[in-house]
């Protein structure tokens, strides 16, 4: 039964990757509950944005300390995962450090050596992150409670464990240590484990297995966590808004109706123009996640819950209930709820008497927004909380006529005299002679 470890490894690997794939499929299905949007334009600019914002993390360094540490963890984590490739091959084929067979010792040593240094840097950064999150008085972290707070910490613990396992694995690998190339860090921890070759081998094997199992758990944890952003930041920045921030979309369905109303030759009884039920939205604006578009739903899954948006929000800074981070988290929570509903009802959504508006996001929050775009500017992964706020305002006003009274007065004035105040349009030029 020499192959037993290989088989066990293959089973664990397939189970881990398979479960992850299943969740990703669900995620895509959930995102597709939203309206389709045209995004096939400006491919060049989109790739550039992705490279700059997601890969280059250009928005992270706006806050230099956090940005720098984040880049270390990010680069460290991505690069160290190259090591996982070796683990997978070794695991499947029963080899040991296959890298040594294909690469010259010096190159292999250099690689592993860099990984070890990065592992230490990641450890340091993660500890600082933990302190920032839990000890210092940073409002955007302190205001997180319950799951979102734990989620942030869990991932940090994960990283500590994975980095330690990697270093222990190297430190207790006697042949690797005796090669004396690449053990830049592990040579110093190696003595801690004594020199009994059997014990060392046992520890090495345990660390090796835990390392790969840990990575698979990490992978599957992502789906439930704000850490989906390490994957979704890429598509999300690709699909990010390219037009000026101040430009809000014009609702096409409204355009058609207004044109009809303004056209003196239009026959009011004529059947609506062709492609009437093509993909016209059933309602104006959004009261639930299905009324949002796919990019907005992708935004919700991508949100890292960092709170940079909220800390820049004028409404939030002055004690109002509105928090753009909460808008994104609510959207994601509701979307996850709808997804579970669909899973439980054989692929069909069964009305659960709830919706995003009211059950998650209140009117009070929506009406506090100044549409200033500070949240959009602050977001490190190109999320647009403002567009969701606007869709819900549209629903409130156009479907429910539920604007605050003063706003209704203002709009009636515009309708009647072309100004938000009750002045006569004929008097528009009076200022010249006043």
């Amino acid at each position, binding site marked *: 039964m020499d192959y037993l470890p290989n088989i066990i490894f293959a089973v664990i690997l397939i189970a881990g990757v398979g479960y992850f794939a299943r969740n990703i499929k669900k995620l895509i299905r959930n995102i597709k509950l939203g309206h389709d949007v045209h995004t096939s334009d400006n491919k060049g600019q989109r790739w550039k944005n992705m490279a700059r914002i997601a890969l280059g993390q250009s928005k992270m360094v706006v806050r230099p300390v956090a940005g720098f540490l984040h880049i270390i963890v990010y680069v460290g984590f991505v690069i160290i995962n190259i090591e996982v490739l070796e683990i997978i091959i070794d695991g499947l084929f029963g080899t040991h450090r296959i890298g040594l067979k294909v690469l010259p010792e010096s190159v292999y040593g250099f690689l592993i050596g860099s990984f070890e240094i990065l592992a230490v840097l990641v450890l340091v950064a993660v500890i600082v992150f933990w302190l920032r999150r839990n000890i210092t008085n940073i409002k955007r972290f302190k205001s997180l409670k319950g799951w979102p707070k734990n989620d942030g910490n869990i991932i940090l613990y994960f990283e500590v464990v994975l980095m330690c396992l990697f270093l222990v694995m190297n430190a207790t690998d006697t042949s690797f240590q005796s090669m004396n190339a690449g053990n830049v860090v592990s040579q110093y921890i190696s003595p801690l484990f004594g020199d009994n070759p059997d014990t060392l081998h046992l520890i090495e094997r345990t660390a090796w297995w835990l390392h790969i199992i840990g990575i698979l758990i990490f992978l599957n944890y992502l789906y439930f966590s704000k850490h989906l952003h390490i994957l979704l930041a890429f598509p999300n920045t690709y699909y990010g808004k390219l037009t000026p921030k101040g430009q809000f979309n014009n609702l096409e369905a409204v355009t058609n109706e207004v044109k009809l109303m303004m056209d003196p030759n239009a026959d009011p009884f004529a059947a609506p123009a062709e492609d009437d039920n093509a993909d016209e939205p059933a309602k104006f604006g959004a009261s639930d996640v299905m009324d949002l578009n796919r990019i907005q739903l992708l935004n919700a899954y991508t949100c890292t819950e960092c709170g940079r948006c909220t800390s820049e929000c004028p409404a939030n800074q002055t004690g109002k209930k509105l928090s753009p981070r909460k808008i994104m988290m609510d959207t994601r929570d509701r979307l996850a709820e709808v997804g579970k509903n669909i899973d439980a009802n054989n692929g069909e959504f069964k009305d659960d008497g709830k919706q995003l508006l009211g059950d998650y996001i209140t009117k009070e929050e929506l009406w506090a927004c*100044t549409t200033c775009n500070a949240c959009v500017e602050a977001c490190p992964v190109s999320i647009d909380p403002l567009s969701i706020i606007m869709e819900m305002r549209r629903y409130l006003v156009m479907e429910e006529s539920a604007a605050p009274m003063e706003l209704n007065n203002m709009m009636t004035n515009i309708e009647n005299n072309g100004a938000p105040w009750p*002045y006569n349009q004929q008097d528009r030029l009076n200022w010249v002679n006043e």
Partner: protein
Amino acid sequence: MKEQLKVPTMAEYMAEGKQPEILFWVGSAGSYDDRAKKITKAFVKLLNNANVDFAVLGAEESNTGDVAKRAGNEFLFQMQAMMNIEVLNAYEIKRIVTCDPHSFNCIKNEYPELGGIYDVIHHTQYIKELIDAGRLSVKGDTYKGKRITFHDPCYLGRANNEFDAPRNVLQNTNATLVEMKKHKRTALCCGAGGAQMFKEPEKGDKDVNVLRTEQALETTPDIIATGCPYCNTMMTDGIKAKEKEDSIIVLDVAELIANDQD
């Protein structure tokens, strides 16, 4: 001794069979709001001084619909937009200048899809253009040595990436420009945007304009410069709330330049 402003309308130009260089979009605030009317007049004074061939729509101008759109009333917005576009297109307008960043953003970015395609600029951009072209000169002594801090309007700055034009214009006054900690991209809103101007704020522990005014006061300015009629109102109210109206004034960039003319 009030000098008479020359404000021709498009209808008058049309009657003479002429086209102006530029249409001045006065906007609702600029037409009716007492404080904003002063900004409108200051800007017209500059246009007159620079001998700009401009016109206004007068009673043919209607609200852009911007504020209705931000309040969520897409219907009203598009009705207003299409009415205005009909008028503008009938006059074959090519270029528009306005003192209101909200009108600027709305006509520039949201009208094109509805059939209104114009070259739209903000008045601070136009003043810069006039100065650069040598058509307008600034004395540079009225505010010499004064401390001026410029408050970025959200819909000019973040929304449309114009941060430099107002600052460049202000440099001509030889005043000392001081920046708030939160400026340009990270500037804090004055609190008026998104239809807030027309309603009471939601419950909170402070008004946004007061917070922004406090940020401005940190720079110990003599003058807070604005580029938007709504910002102007908000900052003026903020100064009053802080009881600083005796030592600090809030002026639009156009007013500062108009006061610094021969």
